[in-house]
């Protein structure tokens, strides 16, 4: 049985709007106007234990919504989700103890605390036994070359250093599943390489199931055997990286750009969309 199952997931947000300018503000005081945005319109896929899945698609396609539902932060309107048999938003506390999550655009470490204090607090929050914690920390810190940074407050880290610290923070309780939402966003080339290399090892050597979203095709090429293209809240393609390459062969690029891939699949599904 697959470790992660998602079936016919739908999610709609209600976004409040108002006309621009002062008149619009006044009108907004009396009558609220809402627009419904369909973030997910029936997404289905499943994942076996130990798979590494790349999720790509333009901004607003539904990638982050999918990750948030899988993490138990959001509740879908309809559809079925289970991770290791648990429904994330129903069995939240049990579920989140078994997963690790990194949101590339946000920080989970305490800004004014030294990195190592933040890690120690996470150890206590997840109730990781001391010996096990030391072993895991040492291993992660060595692999991600974080040793010299442990005594620095988080606010003094560079983005690349912080992202490596974030990844360690997400793994201290040795989760079986890791969700990475744009883990390489804004990183320079060496930092990206370090993150990729590490995620790959984690997946290959430890068998951790990984889902990552990205806008960087090189992330996908380096990491994911399986890629899902999401657009307009639907799964547009689900297959190997080679399949993507095949689909955009006529562009004659060595590594197809993410825009080309997305545009290609949008075109393929264009008739169905509008």
């Amino acid at each position, binding site marked *: 049985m697959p470790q992660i199952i998602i079936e016919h997931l739908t999610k709609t*947000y*209600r976004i409040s709007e108002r006309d621009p300018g002062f008149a619009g503000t006044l009108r907004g005081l009396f009558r609220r106007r809402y627009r419904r945005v369909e*973030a997910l319109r029936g997404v289905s896929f499943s994942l076996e234990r130990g798979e590494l899945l790349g999720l790509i698609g333009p901004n607003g396609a539904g990638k982050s*919504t999918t990750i*948030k539902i899988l*993490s*138990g*932060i*959001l*509740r879908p309107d309809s559809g079925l989700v289970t991770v290791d048999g648990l429904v994330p*938003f129903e069995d*939240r*506390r*049990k579920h*989140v*103890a078994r*997963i690790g*999550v990194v*949101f590339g655009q*946000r*920080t*989970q470490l*305490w800004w*004014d*605390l030294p990195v190592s*204090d933040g890690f*120690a*607090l996470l150890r*206590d*929050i*997840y*109730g990781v036994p001391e010996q096990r914690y030391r072993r895991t920390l040492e291993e992660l810190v060595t692999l991600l070359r974080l040793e010299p940074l442990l005594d620095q407050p988080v606010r003094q880290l560079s983005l690349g250093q912080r992202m490596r610290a974030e990844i360690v923070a997400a793994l201290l309780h040795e989760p079986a599943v890791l969700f990475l939402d744009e883990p390489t966003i804004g990183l320079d080339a060496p930092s990206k390489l370090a993150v990729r290399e590490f995620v790959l090892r984690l997946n290959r050597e430890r068998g951790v199931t990984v889902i990552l979203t990205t806008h960087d095709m090189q992330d996908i090429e380096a990491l994911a055997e399986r890629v899902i293209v999401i657009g307009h809240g639907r799964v547009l393609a689900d297959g190997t990286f080679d399949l993507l390459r095949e689909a955009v062969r006529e562009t004659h690029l060595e590594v197809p750009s993410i825009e080309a891939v997305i545009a290609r699949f949008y075109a393929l599904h264009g008739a169905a969309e509008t």
Partner: protein
Amino acid sequence: MSAPAATHAYIALFVSRFQLMLQYRGAVLAGFATQCWWGAIKVMILAAFYGAPAAAASAPITLSQAITYSWVGQGLLTLLPWMADPDIATAVRTGAVSYDRLRPLDFYALWFARAAGWIAARVVPRALLMAAFACLLLPLLGLAAWAWQPPSAVMAALLFAVSVVLALLLSTAMVMLLNIGVAALLDAAGLNALAAPLVIIFSGSLLPLSLLPDWMQVALLLQPFAGLLDIPLRLYFGQLSGPLAFAGLGLQAFWITVLVLTGRYWLARVLRRLEMQGG
């Protein structure tokens, strides 16, 4: 996670926030200076008030008690629930609150432990400095009449200590209501402005509650804010002693329970909406 492990997690959250807040020494010293200044002004006003013989004779507490009340009140000023926890307000605004949802802990207790650590770290250094100033330094300077007097008895001191711990929990439960309000409304400033006048009058911070009109006394003692400062001080002076002392502590415990249950119910509703709307 087992119950003791979870308790350990909440204590770690409390301690970590406490330590973090102690880093900000400049804020402590600035706050302390202001509180000495206000304390001195209040002491002078009280002295003028007690200067009228009719007032002094009919007052339920002596001038020396009223002066002590002011110094203790200034020392414990940051124990009061003046505003929502700024960290939680920031987390709600930036969306970092998602990470709080990822912790395998009870969500209310997670925020409660953090907020309690925040309040405790703000109050402990200020209270110690104020005690050193008003209780030790003033008598040494020959101003014993204007000083913070020791408690009426050892028992009173013990009851006061227990009551201050309950006041911390009560204050945290009130700050939690503000926190949840911030999560619901995404704005902290308005709520904080609403809380301050209620707190300053009804906790006794402005004026000891027993100096307010007689016909209000029962209501003043029963309302939740009295447990923040006035009840601890009534225990300190021995105004509440014997069975009444335990009634005072019981009243604090009662309001803590009511406010925690209210907060939990409200938080569950707000979180449900955030889960729907994508916070």
